[in-house]
């Protein structure tokens, strides 16, 4: 893709999607924030631990896959 193609794609994108510009929330978010702070943090579900364990085993077994993981992080 050369410079002209890049410019054309930029123009197309600008015409397809509107900018938001400066925008404000429609209501004060503090009451919702306050409720969120009062909630106890949820414990991670068991399958998250299983997934993390699986990834750890995979990385130990196939260290060459580490750059691929890091790329997608």
């Amino acid at each position, binding site marked *: *893709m050369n410079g002209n*193609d*890049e410019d*054309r*794609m*930029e123009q*197309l*994108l*600008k*015409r*397809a*999607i*509107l*900018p*938001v*510009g*400066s*925008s*404000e*929330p*429609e*209501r*004060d*978010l*503090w009451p*919702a*924030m306050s409720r*969120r*702070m009062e909630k106890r943090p949820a414990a991670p579900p068991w399958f998250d631990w299983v997934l993390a364990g699986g990834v750890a085993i995979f990385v130990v077994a196939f260290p060459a896959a580490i750059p691929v993981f890091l790329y997608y992080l």
Partner: protein
Amino acid sequence: MASGTEIGRAQEEEAMLLEAFRQGAPDAFESLFHLHQRAVYGWILRMVRDRGTADDLTIETFFRIYRAHARFDPARGFEAWARTIATRVSIDWMRAQHPEQVMAEEFFADVPGPERSDPALSAEVRDKTARAFERLPPKLRIAAVLAVIEELPHKEIAAALEISVAAVKVRVFRALRLLRRDLEKQGIRP
């Protein structure tokens, strides 16, 4: 017009507020929330382009800020720090979404303003472009939306994404290239 003494006092008050927040004072957090919620919301809305989601992610961002108060470095400034956290929160959210359900219709240019009006660009092309854009990887999409659509300075984007200005340009270029390929697959030659 504010005098030098007033400015100095305001800076001193802000420094005290930030230090109180760093030490975990709930009142200081509430003050910072009220001072910065609009800016953080606006930043998130630019990335996720849906008002309800921006509300939720603003709260999630401030919740992470609240939990991380001890790691706050007052020298860096609160807003810059909040932006980096808001950007991470938005990327996490995008990764968890189905690509076709992300952007609210109100941000599609179906009814463009006079300066954007282009009779040569059909509604179908606009729609396909917007949909293809939603399918881009979140990190590329965020760089492109902020740089190309919102036209923010690359330096500002780089700070929020915690990458270099050169890396922002690379991401924008890759986003446009992927978008072009996607459109070509659909028979659209941009």
